[in-house]
């Protein structure tokens, strides 16, 4: 059965090369643009998330506050689900960092010893929005002398990153709908171009199945091939861009979802979505376009 359908498709493509090529190009480009747009949104949101993760709260402790208490606070903070990482910087380490930064200022270094510099905890959170809350909680601890973080910058960044996530996700959904509409419209145009022939077939006694089968097969094959070509191109582009230029091996699916996935897995998932879309759109798009020609 399939060999006959393939034979039929081959003949159709050979006789109507221009129509076949233009259909294939339109469908492939639509899938490509959809995939590229989705990728740009995902990579942007991943970039923003990386920036978010750079932000930290630094908690400085009073000179007389015991190191054991600070280490207790560090242990407790590490168990907090909002916290990404907690680093303890002792007086000595602080002095070492200070010395490194001011190595060209020997007079300054001579006047300062490790005992002057405060011990601190550097706390990074998984979400930017949790920095204020963490800072607030540490303010209540007795031994804390000062808490530093760029409150205004963090608040603004948090606002705009949320806007980016919402707008990105909305645009992706809208783009899916538009792309699907373009592909279905393309299949409609292909089928409508030979509508009279289907009516003739019906008049000479062809059953609905006889008319439908080759056209649906053609729609599914066009959908699948164009989606596969687009997926391969996107896979190569994303792998290259993410690894070589942006330097991340993991990306976020969307900003709202806290989990990251490997770039290769993302490219694979995107390919699978596009290929499945190609098949499903090819089937239902062709079936829908044929409906009017199957009426008695």
């Amino acid at each position, binding site marked *: 059965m399939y060999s006959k359908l393939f034979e039929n498709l081959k003949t*159709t493509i050979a*006789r*109507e090369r221009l129509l076949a090529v233009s259909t294939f190009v339109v469908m492939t480009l639509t899938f490509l643009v959809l995939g590229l747009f989705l990728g740009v949104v995902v990579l942007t949101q991943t970039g923003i998330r990386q920036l978010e993760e750079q932000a930290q709260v630094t908690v400085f402790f009073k000179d007389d506050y015991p190191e054991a208490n600070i280490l207790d606070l560090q242990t407790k903070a590490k168990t907090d689900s909002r916290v990404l990482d907690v680093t303890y910087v002792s007086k000595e380490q602080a002095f070492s960092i200070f010395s490194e930064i001011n190595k060209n200022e020997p007079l300054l270094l001579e006047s300062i010893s490790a005992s002057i510099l405060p011990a601190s905890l550097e706390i990074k959170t998984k979400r930017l929005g949790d920095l204020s809350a963490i800072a607030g909680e540490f303010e209540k601890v007795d031994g804390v002398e000062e808490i530093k973080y760029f409150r205004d910058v963090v608040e603004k960044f948090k606002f705009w990153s949320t806007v980016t996530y919402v707008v990105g996700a909305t645009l992706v959904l809208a783009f899916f709908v538009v792309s699907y509409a373009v592909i279905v419209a393309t299949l409609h145009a292909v089928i409508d171009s*030979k509508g009279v*022939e289907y009516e*003739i*077939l*019906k*008049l*000479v*006694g*062809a*059953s609905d199945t*006889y008319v439908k089968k080759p056209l649906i097969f053609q729609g599914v094959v066009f959908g699948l091939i164009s989606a596969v070509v687009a997926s391969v191109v996107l896979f190569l582009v994303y792998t290259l861009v993410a690894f070589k230029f942006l330097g991340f091996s993991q990306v976020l699916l969307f900003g709202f979802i806290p989990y990251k996935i490997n770039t290769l897995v993302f490219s694979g998932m995107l390919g699978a979505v596009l290929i499945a879309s190609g098949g499903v759109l090819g089937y239902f798009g062709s079936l829908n376009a044929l409906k009017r020609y199957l009426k*008695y």
Partner: protein
Amino acid sequence: MKQVQFENVKKQYDGAAPVLNGVSFLIDDGEFVFVVGPSGAGKSTLVRLLIREELPTSGDILFCGESVVGMPNEALPGLRRRIGVVFQDFKVLNSKTVFENVAVALEVVDSTGEVINDVVPNVLNMVGLGDKADRFPPQLSGGELQRLSIARALAHEPDILVADEPTGMIDPAASDQIISLLEKINSMGTTILIATHDKRIVDSLKKRVIRIEDGAIKSDKQGGTYVQ
């Protein structure tokens, strides 16, 4: 045996005068019948009603005793396979070759490739298109297109061949060839029903003539002429 029976058939489009109004007639197996009348008399409508391309406003149409009007949609391909139709505008498939156009009529009845390769050349030879099997319809003349249309209608050996103005778009010489061909087909036992306003052809054959005017049958005569 009664093959086609129109029973008080009326066809009226929205708001217009009836195209057919109370038309009744019988056609037996193996007959050769002309349906004549001026343009707009309802001849083509009659053909479209017989293959149920359209439904009548009232009345019934029987084909081999079975109501065409009451037939479920799923049964229509079966009906149309038993009626070979030659359309006035040929209705050939321009994207298929002459051979493929005829093969379609066999493919729709699930004939094997072997049968198709056997039957199609024979039918094409019969209508004089044997040497043009690989051509496409736009490469054929009007007469050749009409013969192709006849070949397709004949390929699956229908019970009746219905031709709507088969000489309407071709020159007199080609018309004569077409009519000779239809006579030959009739002599082999196939019923022929021709809707036409070609007086010359009708008068030359002296067959049964049903005359329709203003949607009603004015006369029905064996061995008749165009004007009776």
